[in-house]
């Protein structure tokens, strides 16, 4: 199909089918469950899924949209134009889907991917354990293969959205005697079974998006072993790359939006001769804004490079490190600029936005910890990219 035709048809279809309440991108991942639980959201998901547009670039054979690069770009632009939320979200689409496409058997793909696209099954990730954070490969959850089934015992932590997930992909230790990277397998398991217990973890921000997950003779089927036995580490690592290299959405916004920090500062601090009255606050805003712009241009550069056929370079290694620092500082600044009004916890004395600013500041302390701490990211850059030696 001609791209212009596709654009026109897509625009028309989106206008007709996207509920108003779903034209509110972006949202924070912690709120995903809530955002996608409304009636509107389910209607929207089903309509999008029917066209394969919940997974626009995935093969049609599994129910995906089958779009090529240019078509997908047009699609993204049209979605962004009305700020449409994606038809579905979550770790199925972002992580295990691509992994199965790369490492799964055809049978595994057939069994799991269509349900991810329709949104029928949602996924969570079972990686971290209490003693294994940055040093993930030291994980201890045991899985013993018996009669075509893995029997799992142990504990996972920081399982994002486990309380709402139907399935989990997990790294488990299948050979306790092998070297630490060599005895790990990658398995899929149903969360709705008696051997699995979930306990949400209250965070300093007051929300509980993560859980502890306990396995007490929990079962994963042998046919749900991804890749080979004891070869799970490389699958898991690859999957983390999907997470770390996930760059901010590139869809270009129309017009120049007002600087969001400046808006806050003007409200809470005020102006003198058109300049924010507190010169240090103004300087912080400029620094943060310039950093964001620099990062945005870097994402754009990498995107253009990959489009032009250049092999993905070392630049992507900075995405998680810089991106998470930007997010953390952004939230902190939005709280700080509000002064005491940005330090409220609850109650009518504060507006919704003020409370969000405070909670957001606390919540986003996590972004430099989860998904590979900033320290681990720096290790990766210094060793793999710069080639600095080990001790």
């Amino acid at each position, binding site marked *: 199909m001609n791209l212009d035709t596709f654009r026109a048809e897509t625009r028309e279809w989106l206008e007709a089918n996207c509920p108003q309440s779903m034209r509110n991108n972006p949202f924070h991942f912690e709120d995903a469950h809530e955002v996608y639980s409304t009636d509107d959201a389910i209607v929207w998901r089903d309509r999008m899924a029917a066209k394969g547009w919940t997974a626009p670039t995935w093969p049609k054979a599994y129910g995906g949209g089958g779009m090529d690069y240019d078509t997908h770009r047009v699609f993204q632009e049209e979605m962004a134009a009305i700020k449409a939320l994606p038809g579905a979200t979550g770790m199925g689409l972002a992580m295990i889907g691509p992994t199965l496409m790369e490492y799964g058997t055809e049978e595994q793909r057939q069994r799991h991917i269509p349900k991810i696209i329709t949104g029928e099954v949602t996924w969570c990730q079972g990686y971290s354990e209490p003693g294994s954070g940055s040093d993930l490969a030291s994980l201890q959850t045991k899985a013993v293969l018996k009669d075509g089934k893995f029997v799992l015992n142990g504990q996972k932590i920081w399982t994002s959205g486990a309380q709402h997930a139907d399935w989990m992909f997990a790294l488990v230790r299948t050979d306790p005697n092998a070297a630490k990277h060599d005895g790990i397998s990658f398995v899929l398991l149903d969360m709705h079974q008696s051997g699995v217990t979930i306990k949400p973890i209250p965070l300093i921000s007051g929300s509980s998006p993560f859980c502890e997950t306990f396995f007490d003779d929990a079962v994963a089927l042998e046919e749900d072993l991804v890749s080979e036995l004891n070869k799970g580490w490389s699958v898991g690592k690859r999957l983390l790359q999907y997470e770390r290299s996930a760059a901010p959405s590139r869809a270009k916004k129309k017009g120049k939006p007002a600087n969001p920090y400046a808006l806050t500062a003007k409200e809470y601090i005020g102006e003198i001769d058109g300049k924010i009255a507190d010169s240090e606050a103004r300087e912080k805003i400029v620094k943060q804004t310039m950093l964001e712009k620099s990062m945005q241009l870097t994402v754009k550069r990498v995107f253009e490079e990959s489009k032009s056929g250049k092999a993905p370079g070392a630049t992507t290694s900075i995405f998680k490190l810089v991106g998470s620092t930007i997010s953390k500082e952004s939230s902190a600044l939005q709280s700080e600029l509000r002064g005491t009004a940005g330090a409220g916890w609850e109650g009518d004395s504060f507006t919704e936005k003020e409370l969000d600013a*405070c909670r957001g500041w606390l919540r986003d*302390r996590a972004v*430099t910890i989860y998904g590979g701490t900033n320290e681990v990211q720096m290790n990766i850059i210094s060793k793999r990219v710069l080639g600095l030696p080990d001790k």
Partner: protein
Amino acid sequence: MPLVLNEEQNMLRDSAKDFCTNSAPIAQFRQLRDDKIEAGFDQQTWQQMIELGWTGITVPEEFGGLGFGFLGLGVVLEECGRTLTASPLLSTAIGAAAIADGGSGEQKSALLPKVAEGELLLALAVEESAHHNPYGAATRAEKAGSTYQVTGKKTFVIDGNVADKLIVVARTSGNAGDRDGLTLLLVDRQSAGVTVTKTIMTDSRNAANISFDGANGELLGAEGNGADLLDRTLDVARILLSAEMLGGTQECFERTVEYLKVREQFGSPIGSFQGLQHRASVMFCEVEMSKSVVLEALSALDDPDDIAELASLAKTRLNDTFNLVSAESIQMHGGIGMTDEYDIGFFMKRSRVCEAAFGNSSFHRDRYATIQGY
């Protein structure tokens, strides 16, 4: 003045450390929060503090206090900062300083003994916006016979929900922002025309919005000339709060250093990684300098000196250091530092609220430069 504690102050510190650790540990603060105790502090603990004489530390002996001075109170607050012990001690001491400095002989005789005995809680009502603004009062006070009628709104009044008397910064002339025309008034919290709404802050400590609708106020100091007394009172507040922040900073830092020694990843304690070691040593430098600055600023309060520069120096340094240390402590603790169950997050929340109180670093750097003439 000497930058070391004397014997009296050392004894006070030891006794405060012992009391806070055993009778008012962080677990107590957590319980207060979880139970949503309206008063915001533990009454029994507070009674014990009174019995220990803490409410009288800065009250002169002639008014029934101990006369141990601000250095004495500072070391107590530092220990309270370590255990996040909630009490109206700080607010009341600030209020008492205002009365001691600006009150009439009659007011001092009537009020200071009650403070010393723990019968009178005080709070300073100065802010009207989300950022510290000492001369920003729009609240008006109209003379009515021998008293004043106060009308306006105050925000972020620390301990405003429990204080018996409020020291209200109002305006008898001029406009918001003018240094002239400010007048300090004593207003009973429970008198007619006063409406108090407790605000729930991220640090789970007391603060309140208070509106005044023709409430009765008693003059403290000179009418229209309150800015000097206010400056001095705020400097007392800044320095005492810095002392509390110093305690929180040290506790948070020490807990983090301990964690670095025990938490293992990649087969080694994470404290063996030079990246973290260097960051820890930078924090150590900041903490050591913070101690010196707070000590000097407290001494300057006792030994009449020009305290404005030191107050701004202390508040800036503790704002920045508490912020650095509490943020680094979360990062170095990793995931567990993000959980509500673990105490380390309390320090970051407390740091955030302390930072905004009585002037953030931007405010005080600007003030410091202005005082120094550039």
